[in-house]
């Protein structure tokens, strides 16, 4: 279980609170107007934004003070998810061994992960040689290799077209199933939430509301969501 215990985020005039949990294996969408703090909340969970107060717990263990890389989470950013000067195999390999000294098994695992996301045999290529969708696939392959129990997605597919985005959401679902991961995904598109997430968190007016069933939320949208959906 991932728990946000009385979390308060503060920066200049920005202010956001969150106090809720999600169950292991859940698929949660974070939705709300831009500037409300969806990304900030995700960054706080990942360890890039220290909360003013409150604790972040995974399975009861406090991770609030841990370095980002040490937390049991993997995060995919909006962009810059791959190092452009490294090959795909090296980019993925860094997820397994920070010194890039891969064993035979690890090398095979990299190949396998690439094949799993539809990039079989492309390990020697550099990100610039890939399309946007392929770059997202490579980043997901690394998440697959790292196999952390929580996958945080900060709108990594915002730049992709609708059809490609659907492919990616399906792939995220597959990766999460393979690694038995809980997924938190920031999105500004209600269709993403409906398609992918069983629970949705509404982030608006300085509060990240406790997650509720997605279908229910959209059937009976509260005022803030109505304002956002228009």
């Amino acid at each position: 279980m991932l728990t946000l215990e009385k979390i308060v985020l503060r920066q200049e005039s920005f202010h956001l609170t969150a106090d809720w949990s999600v169950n292991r294996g859940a698929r949660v969408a974070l939705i709300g107007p831009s500037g409300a703090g969806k990304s900030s909340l995700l960054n706080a969970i990942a360890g890039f934004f220290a909360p003013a107060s409150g604790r972040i717990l995974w399975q009861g263990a406090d991770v609030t003070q841990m370095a980002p890389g040490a937390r049991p989470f993997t995060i995919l950013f909006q962009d810059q998810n791959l190092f452009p000067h490294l090959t795909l195999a090296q980019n993925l390999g860094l997820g397994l061994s920070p010194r890039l000294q891969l064993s035979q098994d690890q090398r095979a695992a990299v190949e396998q992960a690439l094949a799993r996301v539809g990039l079989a045999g492309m390990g020697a290529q550099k990100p610039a040689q890939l399309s946007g969708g392929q770059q997202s696939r490579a980043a997901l392959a690394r998440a697959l290799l790292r196999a952390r129990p929580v996958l945080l997605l900060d709108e990594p597919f915002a730049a992709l077209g609708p059809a490609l985005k659907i492919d990616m959401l399906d792939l995220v679902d597959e990766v999460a199933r393979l690694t038995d991961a809980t997924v938190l995904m920031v999105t500004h598109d209600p269709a993403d939430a409906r398609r992918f997430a069983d629970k949705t968190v509404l982030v608006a007016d300085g509060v990240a509301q406790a997650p509720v069933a997605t279908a229910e939320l959209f059937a009976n949208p509260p005022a803030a969501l109505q304002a956002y959906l228009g």
Partner: protein
Amino acid sequence: MANRPVEIRPALGLALFIAALILGSAAMLLLRAESWRLAPADWSALRFTVLQAALSSLVSATLAIPLARALHRRRFRGRSLLTRLLAAPFVLPVVVAVLGILAVFGRSGPVNAALAALGLPPLSIFGLHGVVLANVFFNLPLATRMLLHGWQAIPAERFRLAAALSMPQSAQFRHLELPMLRAQMPGILTTIFLICLASFAIALTLGGGPKASTLELAIYQALRFDFDLGRAALLALIQFALCAGVTIAAARLSLRQGFGAGLDRAAPLPAPDGWRAPLDAAVITAAVLFLGAPLLAVIAQGLPGLTHLPPGLWQAALRSLVVALVSALLATVAALTLAQAAARRPALWIDLAAMLPLSASGLVLGTGLFLMLHRFVPPAQMALPVTMLVNATLTLPYLYRLILPEARQVVADYDRLTQSLGLPAVSALRFVILPRLSRPLGYGAGIAAALSMGDLGVIALIADGNGATLPLLVQHLIGAYRMEQAAAASLVLIGLSFGLFWMFDRIGGWNADA
């Protein structure tokens, strides 16, 4: 966003070391200055130092205006090469340029031959004339590049609007170009003034005598010939106060550097025709002649001598190479350490540490270190290490400013990814920072190596006859009027300097793919 603790201990240690080196040298000078009375000769050295620096910066910056303007509005074949060559004097060894200037403007050079043919009195290259001429040779290109950046910073739309309103050239100058010049000139003048305050090698070769001695030259004479340590310390202290004072006074003028970003943008508008076209052509031709003739003279004079190079040349070249490589390595590592720390967490103390060397000249640091060490280490043994350390320190500010913007970009783009993968510092350095920064690092190391290779400062102060570097050897040969050998040795020196620069720049370029 990233408010985790950042590893700053290496940068902090380095900053303290730099502060100790420079302020320690100054403190040493303060301790050793025996008398606070300046002799008449010292006053005259102070006056001459300021006078030649002021004249040089004024002449360089003034001449740069028509040249930069012509280069800005004209497009011609070789323009791109020319603007790039304008960056070359920055790394050209001073002794080599002096040798070329002697060949062109000296007693038996073509300029005096032409003056004699016209029945005019000869021009003397020694003394104030020569020092200013050589300073202008080095700083006119620098001023021109800085002004070109200024001209390019005027939005093309403004020129278009001026043309649409059919503003005459004079009005265009008043409304568009003059405000830019007014904003740029103070910084350019001060930058060049500061450079010329510490142009020891020029004063050593073209100055001298009671009338044309700079403070640095007086330090050199006090230390080398009179072994008057107290007087050397006092003079060095004055030099330090002068440079530090100007640096601090100029801090808000944002001192510029004349290399970096390209100058190849498309011409904003059709250039004015009529009499202005031949005028621009004449300005550009004159500049090319002024800057190119001395170098061609060195090449012409030196080529025949390459078959019988002076004895000791290769030992001197080897010494210079070692000095250049070590100081380039030190400077690059130091600049990277400080820039990385500043990129992740901006701090005034880092900027101060990186800029502090601007206030010290090679001779000041050299004198300070000599006074600290001479009781424990014989001068012959300290010459090369001290030279390496001083050269690395003096090139640090340039490298820092070269690397910092790119280091900031790498932090902005990849710091979160690096942290989210939990890469330890060594891995981050090896897989992220070095590859991402390899271009500016290679370029910076190349500049540091070439500067150090051609430097004639501390080494002249401390080295004995057997430990000369290549620039010192050239200076000895000029002093002995063995001009052909000096020119041949100069060619080797230029070849090695630019070879080192080219090599480092290429290494940086190779690693920087995608």
